[in-house]
């Protein structure tokens, strides 16, 4: 019997992804646990393991295909020692169980009739039935001519049929022929506003290399634009002296050396932020049209630069974790972030973000808020700077910290109180224990 391998869901909310790579081809024998493919979403790549044993009959989706819907059939396995007749209904049920990512092994259908094996040539290369798009002949032709994906166009005809008017609307949204950029508010399907082409803006064709947008870049573009446009940002800046912090760090690392744990300045910043949020919980909140969400935990997201972009793994309930634990988690998350091995729940969400550009020598900066968080803290480089103490010039290691706030939920006063709570914790790390 044929076992259908379905596109797995990497998270409960995932609807589609890219089938990045196949690790097998038709004719290969797979055992349970063998990696057969890699699935990619905006920010993570995941290996797909075979749950059943058998011979790969056909790969139904090409490597690199984007927008593969969750539960779409991506391959077929000929089950071991069984006939090749599959009751079509069997595959439709147990969708989740059949997903190779599932913990438990899915039961093999008990087909034991003796039949001649179906030749591989007879396997249909057709797409799964649920991929048929209902569109008028004219709409279909116009979409093809415009290079538009019919599946991505909302249909206003009978039973959701895509008709000419829908294709015209989709074309109008991404038209770049208008010399003046007209405003187009993001619609439900988040159509990009009309922009001028590079050429119209004075960049000659051929004078640049065009690198296609990958999932991560598209997501960053979308989220950052939405946030920058929709969230009323304002920055609050303070300088903190970190000599005491640096000295404490040396001592702490000496203590933890035998455990192989190294605490960074950033880990200490995370701890300080988590502690300060306990004291000023109003800064650990999100704006929603239905009310201000006062989060119960400080889920601190740390911005990690990775190849081609950036990602924000989260340390959950940081206020309950000791420094060593924070350090270990942070390192593990950062490593896996760089290898694109984070699980969606590890980088989606968070109540407060920290972005540290100190190691790159940046003095200060104001990050863009990660919706729906109320604040993001931007940490600059610790540098030797002249300071004034008791009317005298002195030298201290100073770090500039900027808190960007969502003014709908974190007003200036709240932001300031938070920084007032944060500053003594950083400048005197011992107080973080209290």
């Amino acid at each position, binding site marked *: 019997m044929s076992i259908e391998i379905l596109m797995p869901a990497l998270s409960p909310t995932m609807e589609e992804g890219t089938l990045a790579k196949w690790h097998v081809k038709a004719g290969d024998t797979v055992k349970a646990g063998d990696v057969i493919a890699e699935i990619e979403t905006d920010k993570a790549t995941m290996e797909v393991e075979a749950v059943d044993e058998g011979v790969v009959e056909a790969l139904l989706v090409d490597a690199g295909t984007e927008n593969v819907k969750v539960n779409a059939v991506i391959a077929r396995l000929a089950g071991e020692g069984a006939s090749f007749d599959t009751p079509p209904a069997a595959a439709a049920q147990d969708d989740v169980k059949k997903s190779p990512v599932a913990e438990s092994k899915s039961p093999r259908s008990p087909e034991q009739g003796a039949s001649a094996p179906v030749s591989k040539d007879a396997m249909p290369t057709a797409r799964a039935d649920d991929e048929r798009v209902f569109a008028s002949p*004219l709409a279909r032709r116009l979409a093809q001519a415009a290079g538009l994906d019919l599946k991505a166009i909302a249909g206003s005809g*009978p039973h959701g*049929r895509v008709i000419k008017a829908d294709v015209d609307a989709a074309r109008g949204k991404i038209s770049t022929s208008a010399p003046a950029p007209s405003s187009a508010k993001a619609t439900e399907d988040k159509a990009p506003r009309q922009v001028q082409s590079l050429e119209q803006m004075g960049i000659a064709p051929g004078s640049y290399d065009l690198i296609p947008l990958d999932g991560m870049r598209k997501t960053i573009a979308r989220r950052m634009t939405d946030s920058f446009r929709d969230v009323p940002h304002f920055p609050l800046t303070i300088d903190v002296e970190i000599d005491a912090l640096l000295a404490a760090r040396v001592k702490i690392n000496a203590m933890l050396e035998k455990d192989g744990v190294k605490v960074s300045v950033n880990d200490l910043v995370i701890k300080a932020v988590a502690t300060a949020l306990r004291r000023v919980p109003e800064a650990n909140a999100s704006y929603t049209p239905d009310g201000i969400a006062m989060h119960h935990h400080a889920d601190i997201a740390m911005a990690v630069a990775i190849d081609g972009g950036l990602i924000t793994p989260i340390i959950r309930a940081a206020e309950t974790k000791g420094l060593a634990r924070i350090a270990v988690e942070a390192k593990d998350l950062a490593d896996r972030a760089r290898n694109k091995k984070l699980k969606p729940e590890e980088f989606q969400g968070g109540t407060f973000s920290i972005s540290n550009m100190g190691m790159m020598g940046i003095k200060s900066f104001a990050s863009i808020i990660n919706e729906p968080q109320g604040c993001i803290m931007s940490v600059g480089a610790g540098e030797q700077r002249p300071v004034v103490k008791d009317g005298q010039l002195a030298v201290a290691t100073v770090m500039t910290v900027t808190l960007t706030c969502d003014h709908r939920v974190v007003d200036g006063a709240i932001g300031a109180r938070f920084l007032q709570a944060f500053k003594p914790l950083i400048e005197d790390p011992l107080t973080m224990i209290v």
Partner: protein
Amino acid sequence: MHPLSDFDLIVIGSGPGGYVAAIRASQLGLKTAIVERSELGGICLNWGCIPTKALLKSGEIYEQLSHLSDYGLSVKGAGFDFQKIIERSRGVAATMNKGVTFLMKKHRIEVIAGTAKLEKGSPAPKVVVALSAGGSRTVTAKNVIVATGARAREIPTVGLASDGDRVWTYRDAMAPKALPKTLIVIGSGAIGIEFASFYRALGSDVTVIEAVDRILPVEDEEVSKAAKKAFEKRGIAFRVGAKVTKLSKSKTGVTVDLEVSGKAESLQAEVAIVAVGIAANTENLGLEALGVKLDRGHVATDSHCATNVPGLYAIGDVAGAPWLAHKASHEGVHCVEHIAGLKPANLNTPIPGCTYANPQVASIGLTEAAAKAAGHEVRAGRFPFRVNGKAVAAGETDGFVKTVFDGKTGALLGAHMIGHEVTEMIQGFGVAITLEATEEDLMATVFAHPTMSEAMHEAVLDSFGKVLHL
């Protein structure tokens, strides 16, 4: 049902717009009443579309009698009884009228016989009916649809006003006391041409006057030209580009003074039929007091047939062009579905136009000129019936089918036909346009042989240089 209203919907007027709207409303569970001051079925059923087709059929058969020898047949003593022809058409109207009466009963729509007038009300204007049987009755509803239709337009200043004797409008022309020997028809739209065709078939001397430089001005130019030629072959005379300066009457007839390209001319006949357009029935409804907006004489409505007054809608002839029964019915259904909260799908459903003269004319969508003016890269094709097997076999070889495509997208923009029973064929093109079929789909469709409809297929092929039988 609204607790304080008598009905969910009141429809004023029971023509093809009103009675269809009422039936649809009933199907959707709305408690509906319909107000009618005259006969159920409105003008279309009683004094328009339907009875004229009965008259035209009589005329057509009689005209065929003079060609019987073409078919190897002969008849002696062929003749007609004019009053019987008229009676038949009245009988047809009565049958249809009974049909609508039955439909109203079947769908439990309350029929209120009387003349309606609207007064301020909420959520929709109140309907005050002066009952035909005497007395008055005020009814309320959540929604009111005005479907009062239209009447013949008259221009009294130049004498174009009916007197029921020498000067007729459509109504008089459908049940006259006697067959006029000579007739002048003013206006060459569908109504004027149909009457011209009917009376010519019975032997009257007919001259048609048209102000524009071609007859049937809304049709494609090629169709206008072919129609004029075909009618002239039957003996109908035309004056195009002619302006009527005065119509004067005497006891025995009319004199129509014209101006044709600067030259004055006078025509005389026993009767003149005035068919110069339509005037919406918006008077005495109380629309002015309610502040209902009008647009060039008809009720202004949005895409759901709503007027500017909450709860008040208008459909059909009273709401503007095209003044066609099927447009009224279509609007009636759409309007009621909108009122009932259904969201009809977004479909481009073009409205066909038909003229039932001999030969018939049928068209839908854009003319070639309009398509070009709209900026389309036009590909037009034609196929004449004279080389269509069925047409030749039946001896009905007049006319052609013309299709107009957008050359870039293959979309069918319009179709224009003249010939025998083309009014029955136009629906094929209507379905194609609604489904947004392309030339590919039409070319791939198999048309039965031998039919006149094959000319539709060949016209499509001709649009792209692939015609087979020419």
